[in-house]
């Protein structure tokens, strides 16, 4: 069958077998949840509860005041034990609401679904999506309402549903496509209505043929198609997916809006359907627990705020020799120093394995592999050198801000240079220089 893709990129080992054929299991909520008020791109939510309050499951406990923000909801019913700083997957303590689970799962009574969801107007859909605290579930956790509100003057013609799951090991999106294909398509239809787009494209890589076949069958009722993409990393990166599916290039520094496209992850599409039709806020998500450091790898539906340790215990626990714990995929995930961090909305996976001793770093021999593999067509080794020697304006001229940090360069670097780390450092330095300048 004909497949399409984007230029460059890599093909790391997939390691999806341990969980690919396992149904998404529901994990019982733990005794205590720690729900950070900042789980998304943008400003943190502001707490609505205080110590001692009784909360319901699905009750809003953090309010989004800024445009780029998302509200946060209780993922269990029970008593608020603390509103305080707590370990966060981003690495430093962040304000979180600790709730003692009363085990009743008493649902917040005000939550209301809509029987005929497709008759809602775009504003109503956006309002419901915002109230449900939905953010992009692919990992970046960008507030979905913003993505559903194209700026004036931009017409959206196509919705792309991202079913690539190009990160190795992760399989939860694949399972969602197999187990909830209708919900995903219905959620997509809502996105289409909200943005005024004409058609839907679902992009699935050819290592997930089963999901492709299933969705192709179900999409007959909608205006759209399912496209088969050649398995390659980072296919699921927004700009690369848009190029692969439509041959459109998002301008530098621009957004998919600029080429008339909105991209949503399959998990997000399902969450949108649940929010609008059932009134269900985003208080749980599907994720993959895997890696050779996990005794029984699984796909799970987990309440937000559940500590990683509880999730891993549910999967048989860690192997003895584990020394790496990662939230997300192995290519772009964040490594964790402790298992005492909560699952947040952007947690697409919890991976653990035993890493070998770090390899020796050599100097760059200019082999050019980073350039051959960069999906953004940058020159990572040159960017690294500019940052290393403080030529930040040169780095900016050469497109350091266009880097999506996918890690293809570093994956293939024979000299073991932490290229992505240098580029990230450079980006941060450029941003802080700019902030300082604008503050003057």
């Amino acid at each position, binding site marked *: 069958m004909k497949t399409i893709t984007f230029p460059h990129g890599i093909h*790391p*080992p997939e390691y999806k077998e341990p969980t690919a054929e396992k149904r998404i299991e529901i994990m019982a909520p733990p005794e205590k949840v720690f729900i950070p008020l900042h789980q998304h791109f943008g400003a943190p939510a502001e707490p609505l509860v205080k110590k001692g309050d009784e909360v319901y499951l699905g009750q809003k406990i953090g309010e989004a005041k800024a445009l780029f923000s998302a509200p946060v909801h209780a993922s269990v019913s029970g008593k608020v034990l603390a509103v305080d700083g707590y370990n966060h997957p981003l*690495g430093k303590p962040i304000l979180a609401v600790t709730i003692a689970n009363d085990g009743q799962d008493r649902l917040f009574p005000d939550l209301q679904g809509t029987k005929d969801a497709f008759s809602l107007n775009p504003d109503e859909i956006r309002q419901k999506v915002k109230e449900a605290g939905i953010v992009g579930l692919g990992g970046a956790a960008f507030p979905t309402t913003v993505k559903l509100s194209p700026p004036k003057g931009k017409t959206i013609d196509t919705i792309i549903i991202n079913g690539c799951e190009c990160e190795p090991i992760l399989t939860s999106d694949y399972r969602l496509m197999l187990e909830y294909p209708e919900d995903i398509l219905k959620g997509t239809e809502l996105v289409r209505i909200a943005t005024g787009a004409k058609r839907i494209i679902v992009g699935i890589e050819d290592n997930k043929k089963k999901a492709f076949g299933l969705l192709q069958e179900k999409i007959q009722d909608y205006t759209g198609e399912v496209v088969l993409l050649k398995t390659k990393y980072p296919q699921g990166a927004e*700009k*690369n997916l848009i*190029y692969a599916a439509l041959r459109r*290039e*998002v*301008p*530098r520094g*621009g957004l998919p809006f600029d080429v008339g496209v909105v991209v949503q992850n399959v998990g997000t599409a399902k969450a949108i359907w649940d929010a609008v039709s059932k009134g269900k806020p985003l208080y749980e998500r599907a994720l993959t627990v895997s890696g050779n450091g996990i005794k029984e790898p699984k796909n799970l539906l987990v309440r937000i705020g559940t500590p990683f*340790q509880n999730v891993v215990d549910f999967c048989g626990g*860690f192997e003895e020799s*584990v*020394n*790496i*714990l*990662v939230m997300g995929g*192995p*290519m*772009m*995930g*964040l*490594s*964790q*120093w*402790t*298992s*005492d961090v909560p699952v947040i909305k952007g947690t697409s996976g919890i991976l653990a394995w035993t*890493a070998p001793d770090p*390899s*020796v770093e*050599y*100097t760059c*021999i*200019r*082999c*050019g592999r980073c*350039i051959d593999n960069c*999906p*953004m*067509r940058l*020159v990572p*080794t*040159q960017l690294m050198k500019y940052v290393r020697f403080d030529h930040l304006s040169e780095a900016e001229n050469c*497109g350091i801000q*266009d880097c999506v*940090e*996918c*890690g293809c360069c*570093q*994956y*293939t*670097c*024979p*000299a*073991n240079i932490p290229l*992505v*780390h240098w580029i*990230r450092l450079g980006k941060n330095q450029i941003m802080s220089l700019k902030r300082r300048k604008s503050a003057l």
Partner: protein
Amino acid sequence: MTNKTYILQSSPHFKDKDSVPKIMYVVILSLMPSFLTSVYFFRFRAIALFISCIGACLATEALFLWLRKKPKHSLLDGSAVITGLLLAMTLPPSLSLDRAVIGAVAAIAIGKQVFGGLGHNIFNPALVGRAFLQTAFPVAMTTWLPPAMLKVNTVTFATPLDNLKFQDAVAQGTLTSLKDLFLGNVGGCLGETSALALLLGAIYLFYKRAIDWRIPVGIICALTVFTGIFWLANPDKYASPLFHILAGGLLIGAFFMATDMVTSPITPLGSWLYALGIGIMVGLTRLFGGYPEGVMYSILFMNTFVPLLNRYTRSRILGERREK
């Protein structure tokens, strides 16, 4: 609550299995056919030259690493061995061993370590060593031995390109046959004589994707077109492009010298321009220059342009719009 802590590291957490030493050892392996044919053709002379060049390169590298307090693992990355191998392959078999050692020291010291070691040098180290010898001992560097099995009782022996340049071989009809050139049954530097052995190594390099294919392809195409025009215009005076490709150091230069990662461009367009420059320079030197051969200086000359090429041939970033 657990007290166990994990390693914090920056993503990506996966890494393929390739490394700098692995690439270097692929290059060394790819040079083995040429190594063996040169031993076959030049016997003990070849072995002695290889040992002295590689030994001197390693010793110089070790000395500099020690002086500059650099980690020792750099010594075993294979790069100094390659420099020694390549240098020996570009030497005339009759060169005395002390001179070969001087060339090897110059290659590593002047060609590589003064710039900061592996990855920082501008010029191909082996060619710097050879250029040094060519300037220091011009006679010794152009005195050739016949291959061992020819059983010719002469001390000196002309290379095919010498014949072409100084004996007017095309007009005289004494041009070396393509078959001899291909197999290597001719006079010349240790490793450059057998086109067959070099091509075997090159196929392995391509298979392992250890070199940028654009560079050899570009050089050969540029030289073919350049010498082809003159050959078509006057086949009684000029040699055919195929002769030029197989003769002298063109193949070893195109596949093993010009493709040195450190001293060749990193952008695709840059590689094409660099290869084009080398091909034309070689053609110019051979047809109109004072020397019979010009591969070494052509590559060294184009090496100087690499930083500029890298700078001005950057690929278009995804989504970038350039003013026309």
